[in-house]
């Protein structure tokens, strides 16, 4: 059954949902848009496609401390730190965000043993997907078989209709979210049983045309050209929904402190710098090649799917306009 809420009453819905725990919504921060815990009066933007930083940070935060250490004499005590993710709701994720989560799931969740930090956040967070009414010029998720109006893996699908949002539960958790909203929701309007179908462009790329035989092209001269304009910043990796590299660091002094996990980027020199001073990826050429081969070859070899969702963030944000579309084209993945 489709439920409906007026746009003017969304604030009330957020109030109810945030009682369960943190409610993540795309919030405007200057010209940027990121998923952040909602609080009264926060600048929610559920129209812009799509958030500047991907929704991965809800599940893989920029920084999370996970144990603290304490030393007394020769004794070292380790104490796990509690996470705050209990009963969270992530609201407004796009279909590409959810595809990105699938990619992260394979790495962190569907492993034996799974990653405890990720698993907990994932299991305790209900997801409300929001259909894209109109794709941005950067979007090319249709190339990867994503329907921007229908997200896989969400608990609830939402879409704009008239002056409000239609809501359709996809799981029991989704039903529960709807029933918690009670009288705020009305019966959905007639003729709005499904979100309207949306298609993005694909920059002339075709999935079958995507680079094959990359194994043999490790030393291809094309990398020599591609890396040159790269500045070596980590913007693309931090906004990307499928980049998941992290680092572990300690903060504290000899007697007491904590260990935390934080984002890291394969675009940085220090990422592969070893203690003895050797660096297996010494220049930007090796680092650029690694990043894109990871998306186009290593990840697909291991998990069967190209690690790109067509969200277009690297197209929008790279300061020198070096992006995955350009790389796929240069590798000959353009359909003619």
């Amino acid at each position, binding site marked *: 059954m489709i439920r409906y809420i007026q746009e003017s009453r969304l604030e009330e819905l957020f109030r109810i949902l945030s009682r369960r725990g943190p409610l993540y919504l795309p919030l405007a921060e200057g010209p940027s848009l990121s998923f952040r815990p909602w609080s009264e009066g926060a600048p929610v933007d559920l129209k812009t496609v799509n958030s500047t930083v991907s929704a991965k940070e809800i599940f893989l935060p920029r920084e999370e401390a996970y144990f603290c250490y304490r030393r007394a004499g020769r004794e070292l005590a380790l104490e796990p730190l509690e996470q705050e993710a209990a009963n969270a709701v992530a609201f407004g994720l796009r279909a590409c965000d959810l595809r990105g989560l699938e990619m992260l799931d394979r790495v962190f969740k569907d492993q034996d043993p799974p990653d405890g930090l990720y698993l907990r956040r994932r299991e305790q967070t209900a997801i409300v997907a929001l259909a894209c009414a109109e794709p941005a010029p950067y979007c090319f998720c249709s190339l990867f078989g994503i329907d921007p109006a229908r997200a896989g893996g969400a608990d609830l699908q939402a879409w704009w209709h008239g002056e409000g949002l239609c809501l359709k539960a996809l799981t029991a958790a989704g039903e529960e979210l709807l029933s918690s909203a009670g009288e705020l929701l009305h019966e959905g309007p007639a003729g709005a049983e499904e979100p309207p179908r949306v298609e993005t462009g694909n920059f002339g790329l075709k999935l079958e045309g995507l680079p094959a035989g990359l194994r043999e092209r490790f030393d291809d001269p094309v990398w020599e050209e591609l890396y040159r304009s790269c500045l070596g910043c980590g913007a693309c990796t931090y906004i990307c929904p499928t980049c998941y590299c992290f680092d572990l660091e300690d903060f504290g002094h000899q007697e007491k402190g904590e260990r935390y996990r934080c984002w890291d*980027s394969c675009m940085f020199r220090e990422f592969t710098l070893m203690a003895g001073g050797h660096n297996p990826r010494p220049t930007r050429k090796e680092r650029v090649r690694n990043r894109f081969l990871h998306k186009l070859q290593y990840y697909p070899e291991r998990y069967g799917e190209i690690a790109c969702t067509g969200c277009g963030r690297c197209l929008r944000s790279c300061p020198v306009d070096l992006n995955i*579309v350009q790389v796929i084209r240069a590798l000959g993945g353009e359909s003619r």
Partner: protein
Amino acid sequence: MAQDNLNRDQATARIRAAVTQDLLSGRISLLLGWQKGLFWWRSRPLFARSQQDLERLVWDSFCAVNLSRYLPEELSIEERVGILVKGCDARAFHRLLQDRMLDRERVLLYGLPCPGMLDYRLLAEAGVKEAEQMLEEGEELVIQTGGGEERRPRTDFLLEKCRLCPHPDPVVYDQLLLPPGEPWMDPASRFQDLEARERPTPAERYAYWSGELQRCLSCYACRQVCPACSCRECFAEQQEPRWLGKGAGLNENMLFHIIRVYHGAGRCIECGECQRACPVGIPLLELSRRLAKDIEELYGPYEAGMDPEAPPPLLTYRPEDPAAFPEK
């Protein structure tokens, strides 16, 4: 901005003709320029080594990337590099020259008076979605939207870094390929907007900057794109001592930006690439400009990157200097 009545295609053709000759004759082995990016509103760096490469060369209203940043590395590979320089690229060149990051003799500079580069965000807000909806007529932009035709001053749509630029014409070049233009910002009044944005109390200033900097991703795009960031090892990555962790804490974000800006004090050419590069839109240029303004107030007029012989104010002193603190 009168471009000799050349339209951009003609200007591009003229530039291409000039550099093609030098590249084919072996006078330069590489030409740094711009080519069209994925979208009509973006142009990306071009590293041209052949006539075929040069066919992709463009000179349009989106060539915002400061190319000089690439010179030190390219010169470590190439014998002699040609580079197209706008006002900010030229000042960046001086910055690098003064920092002894490159060899003047091995660079050939082709000067391009810059009309200021356009900001897609502002164009989109005005309803421009396709290139065809926008026509540049001298200092005006003719915009076609559903509502009809609108003529607006071109300066309304400039990137902030360009709107504030007092030196759009290159200050150094070996050849000027297009006729000089008319600047739209007087160097003496270039800090006027800062006074209008004065935040009177420390609490307001802290609230503003912590609000802006808390979203910093630590991607270091601002540093990587900066022609004044020339340390071989940045303090942010130094291991011994370790100044900065990789965490996302506000205090570390602010420490990074305060020190980054300070390292550019008196050396920053105000090209605003930091701000343009920031993926989350932090107004980084403001802090650097406030510092440049303070330096002028305390130690006299100085614009970095104008004259490579004039020592940066923080690398020199006069015994009679004033101080920003009580000296008695």
